[in-house]
């Protein structure tokens, strides 16, 4: 069953006793949709706050318009009423102050007009007091026309009426001013509400930004960082990367791609190894092919010469192989070649290089040992070959021998060394086959410089 890593998450319990447990992860969603939903929610909430703010602002505009168009004219009307009441009081004072009856009558006329004026009559309290004042002053003026000293006697009475007029002026003034309170209260309340809503909207914006950043960080940035880290260390040598549960489909897709990429890397590595094997090995014997041997031997030879270490090369050729082929067939020849290759692998050291040089010819490179030690090793190989019976597919068995030529390679290029070994091989063939011959250029060295480094190997 193919399970999506984003839908099923595996992890081990801390105790580690019961092994991995599968639990369903939250259902994955598309990042675009998730953030679009979040943005839509925010827009709705912010839009609502803006609409509410606009409504409050409209209330303030309405209240101020009402204040200007209705309340202020009304306040001015109250002020004019207060002014008329004050004028009434002043005309009364004038009636008591002047000595001329004509002036008194003139003031009385104004008092009559004020007391009868619609601006006074429409205010019940002011109208009552104005009428009372008019009657009192009218009586005073009438009495004064008869006796000039009479007004003074009623001045105390007038003082009380004048005081009431003064208080009425105050009341009317305050009454007028208070008319503005209602509109101002509405505007103030709306402004206060607007301030709260504005703060709420700002907090909303802040919370949204924080939530947005947290979600982006948690569901996008962190997974991307994990993916980046996994990609930077992704290798066929390492295990497949492990990702935590992710809720974003896009992240899941990238994580799956990384896993697929890792699997592909491993597959490629396996393929590479197979191809390398095919490119470097001889198909029949499984030994190195000539090209790979020459590359490897060249590197090893340079290393040995740089550190002045002993190194020896050899050429080997199966004796009378053509005759064997002609007698038993190519399948028998192939079987002998494979058997010899197995014998070589079994006899030589791990560090020795050997390849099928061509046909029934083999090339060798022996690091860290000189021709003398190599000769012993080669001799052992020759002897084991001589003793070997090769079973053929048809049930028969054949025997094969090998001739080997050795040459010191510690002071010459690989080609020269191999040429010398090849000459030694021909010498072995010439001397009767099934033997090991050390190149003459190496023989002198055997006598003069005994190889002590690898003496313990045999």
């Amino acid at each position, binding site marked *: 069953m193919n399970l999506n890593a984003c839908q099923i998450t595996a992890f081990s319990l801390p105790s580690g006793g019961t092994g991995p447990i599968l639990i369903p992860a939250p259902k994955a969603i598309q990042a675009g949709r998730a953030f679009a939903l979040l943005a839509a929610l925010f827009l709705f909430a912010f839009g609502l706050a803006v609409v509410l703010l606009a409504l409050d602002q409209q209330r303030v505009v309405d209240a101020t318009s009402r204040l200007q168009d209705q309340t202020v*004219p009304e306040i*001015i009307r109250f002020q004019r009423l207060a002014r*008329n009441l004050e004028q*009434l009081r002043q005309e009364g004072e004038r009636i008591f102050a002047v000595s001329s009856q*004509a002036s008194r009558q003139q003031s009385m*006329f*104004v008092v009559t007009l004020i007391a009868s004026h*619609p*601006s006074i009559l429409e205010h019940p309290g002011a109208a009552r007091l104005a009428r009372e004042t008019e009657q009192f002053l009218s009586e005073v003026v009438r009495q004064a026309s008869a006796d000039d000293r009479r007004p003074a006697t009623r001045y105390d009475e007038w003082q009380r009426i004048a005081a009431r007029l003064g208080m009425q002026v105050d009341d009317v003034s305050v009454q007028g001013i208070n008319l503005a309170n209602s509109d101002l209260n509405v505007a103030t309340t709306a402004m206060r509400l607007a301030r709260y809503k504005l703060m709420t909207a700002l907090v909303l914006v802040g919370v949204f930004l924080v939530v947005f950043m947290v979600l982006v960080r948690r569901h996008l940035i962190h997974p991307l960082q994990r993916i980046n880290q996994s990609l930077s260390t992704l290798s066929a040598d390492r295990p497949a990367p492990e990702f935590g549960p992710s809720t974003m489909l896009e992240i899941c897709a990238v994580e799956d791609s990384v896993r697929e990429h890792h699997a592909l890397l491993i597959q490629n590595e396996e393929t590479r190894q197979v191809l390398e094997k095919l490119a470097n090995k001889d198909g029949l014997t499984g030994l190195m092919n000539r090209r790979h041997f020459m590359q490897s031997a060249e590197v090893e030879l340079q290393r040995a010469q740089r550190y002045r270490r002993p190194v020896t090369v050899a050429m080997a050729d199966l004796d009378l192989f053509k005759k064997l082929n002609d007698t038993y067939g190519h399948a028998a020849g192939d079987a002998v070649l494979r058997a010899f290759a197995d014998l070589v692998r079994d006899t030589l050291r791990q560090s020795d290089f050997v390849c099928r040089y061509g046909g029934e010819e083999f090339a060798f490179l022996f690091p860290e040992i000189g021709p003398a030690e190599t000769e012993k090793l080669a001799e052992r190989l020759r002897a084991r070959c001589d003793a070997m019976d090769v079973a053929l597919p048809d049930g028969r068995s054949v025997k094969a021998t090998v001739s080997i030529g050795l040459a010191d390679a510690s002071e010459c290029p690989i080609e020269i060394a191999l040429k010398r070994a090849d000459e030694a091989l021909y010498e072995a063939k010439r001397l009767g086959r099934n033997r090991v011959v050390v190149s003459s250029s190496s023989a002198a060295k055997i006598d003069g410089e005994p190889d002590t480094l690898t003496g313990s190997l045999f």
Partner: protein
Amino acid sequence: MSRAALLLLLWCALPASPGSAVLAADRPALRVLVLDNAPPMSFRDEFGQLTGFSVEVARAVCSEMRVNCAFDVVTQSALLPAISQGKADIAAVGLLATTERRAKMLFAKPYYRSMSLWLARPGIVPGQAGVRVAAVGGSVQEAYGRKQGWEMNAVATHGELAEPLISGQAQAVLVPMISALNLQKVVAFRKLGLATTVIHAAELSGDAAFGISPFRPELLKEINAALDRIKRNGTYDRINSRFLPFRVS
């Protein structure tokens, strides 16, 4: 430097904005009708210049509207026909908006509230037989008296109202409140010792407003807005204090 000069030229080329304090010279003047013998509402001062409560309110309204106003003097009886026929734009006189008048002209918002007074010797009451009542010809007071069947003595201007009583041609006078204020300043009139009675008839009291030509309905809104502004900004109250002893609005 050249950029600043260009900006200056552009600024100069711009037409004066509506908010400019400069009156629009190219805007046609409004023809305003006023009375010249109705103190303290409308009269000529010692220099012969027209002034008075109604005249100054009209000037303030024209200033608020930023229009040029040309003042023409007419009599009360000639006032209403001139407005109703469209010979003038505004009648800057405190007119009571009677039904008959409303049919002939438009009325702005009221600029003061008025009432009518009966001034007569003590004992002479309205409607008394054998009493001749003086009033300004063409006024609501004259119309009211005639409607009541009173014997009326019409004069041409408010300034002439005292004469019939002083000479004995009339025994009572029916006048608007503010005209009565002016009559009280005439010594000979005051010496008559007249008693004051407020006539509480609906057609004789109430809101007084400027008349507007029925051919200029677009002026109504502008004039009303200008009146509202001068009532709010204190201009109206200063005019009130200058000409009248108490607030008449």
